[in-house]
């Protein structure tokens, strides 16, 4: 058997240089957050939003987020129509409460849980991430996210769990787009186990400190910021741990255009358009796209030795 030994210090554990230089402010912010948190749990004043006093994360980018209006009116969510403006128009039919997520497959503790339970298992944090769509546009989004690793650990994966498969709700009554056969429903996505356990991978439940709007994948969606946006599956009802690489919807729809890995890669073009540059919404000129969407330092090691042209 081949045992892969991790290097002494993995890239993800090395403190970002900017963060290190900024450590005093960072510690002070952490301290303030801690004080605020205890204060909030002791005293009466109600928090401003549902996610007040969120823990900040060193994994957040310092780039300024796109306005809420951009993030909530320009969506690819084919379950509510194929136009970018459709989800904002149509997603009101989605009922997000009650909502349960089935966690099963290669786990010791298969169970159905509600979002509140998931939030207890893995407390929400603010994660300001870049989002790069396969269509060559990008945004910066302040998510409220639950680290995915803690949730998967809770289910106690067996040794056979090699991949994680995610499934979106399949209900044409609530999701009118599912009445068309534009894609095969339900929407499916998957991650390799080590990708799912990476600290950058989160399940988002909020946006800008507020509850996640329906058009952004309420009540709970995946966010994997180093991959093209279509990997970040929305409105999840099932998380299944599996032994074989799961099917993912866009790969099934157009295998030569969309892969399973779908890591952001400026060197590997989409067959019909270039991925070298992107338009950050709100900016005039295109900016160069960064390998792994700028998260190479944290995630490149996951793919060492892999031909990223082959595994696009």
């Amino acid at each position, binding site marked *: 058997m081949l045992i892969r030994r991790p290097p002494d210090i993995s890239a993800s554990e090395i403190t970002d240089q900017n963060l290190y230089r900024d450590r005093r402010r960072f510690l002070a912010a952490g301290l303030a957050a801690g004080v605020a948190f205890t204060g909030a749990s002791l005293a009466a004043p109600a928090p401003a939003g549902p996610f007040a006093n969120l823990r900040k994360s060193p994994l957040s980018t310092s780039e300024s987020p796109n306005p809420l209006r951009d993030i909530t009116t320009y969506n690819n969510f*084919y379950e509510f129509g*194929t136009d970018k*403006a459709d989800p904002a128009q149509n997603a009101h039919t989605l009922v997000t409460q009650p909502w349960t997520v089935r966690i099963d497959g290669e786990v010791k503790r298969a169970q159905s849980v509600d979002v509140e339970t998931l939030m207890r298992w893995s407390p929400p944090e603010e994660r300001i991430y870049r989002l790069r769509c396969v269509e060559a546009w990008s945004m910066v989004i302040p998510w409220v996210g639950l680290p995915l690793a803690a949730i998967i650990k809770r289910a106690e994966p067996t040794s056979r769990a090699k991949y994680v498969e995610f499934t979106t709700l399949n209900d044409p009554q609530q999701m009118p787009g599912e009445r068309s056969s534009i894609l095969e429903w339900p929407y499916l996505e998957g991650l390799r186990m080590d990708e799912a356990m990476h600290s950058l991978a989160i399940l988002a439940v909020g946006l800008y400190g507020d509850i996640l709007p329906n058009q952004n994948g309420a009540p709970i969606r995946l966010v994997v910021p180093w991959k093209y946006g279509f990997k970040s599956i929305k409105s999840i009802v099932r998380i299944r741990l599996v032994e074989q690489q799961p099917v993912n919807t866009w790969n099934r729809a*157009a295998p030569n255009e969309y892969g399973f890995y779908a890591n952001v890669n400026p060197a590997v073009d989409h067959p*019909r*358009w*270039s991925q070298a540059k992107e338009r950050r919404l709100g900016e*005039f000129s*295109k900016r160069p796209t960064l390998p792994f969407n700028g998260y190479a330092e944290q995630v490149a090691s996951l793919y060492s030795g892999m031909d990223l042209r082959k595994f696009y």
Partner: protein
Amino acid sequence: MKSLVAFKTALFALCLVPLARLVFFAFTGRLGANPIEFVLHSLGTWTLTLLLVTLSITPLRRLTGWNCLIRVRRMLGLFAFFYACLHFLTYAGVDQSFDISAIIADIVKRPYITIGFTCFVLLIPLAATSTHAMQRRLGSRRWQLLHRLIYLIAAGGVVHYLWLVKKDITQPLLYGLVLVVLLAMRLVWRRRVTAGAALSRPLG
């Protein structure tokens, strides 16, 4: 005559509405989260729409018998060219910031841009020879032959649209369907004319 002038003026104004709409949207912040894409796509679909409107003049004339419609065909064709120019300039100038090497790479490498650019280039001689003077200089046979390029350009425009969409090909297919109907009508009429000519020949 007076009513023709009024009709032409009204049609001219109508053809400017898509542009006016974009300007209005731009000044009132209604171009959405990705305004460049919105403008680019809007100008592209209006180019295609005006090409199809231009191509519908002949069938409309035959169906209605309103021969005066021929008097507005050139204007409609030139408006199609006008929107094609704006579409190309938005792509080259705004989307690509006049990065000539990137634009050339796109034209060479991306089939949908190759075909879109080819169609745009082919429109130029048609626009240039649209005047009466040019018509006379070329002679009506040659002029007509040259202007048959419009069929190719419209088909290319539909393919350009079809190849760029990610998955939902409903819209480009609709444009394609209209084009097929417009071209099929011409074929049917032409066959009838030939058949009619054959019949009217002395039978022996």
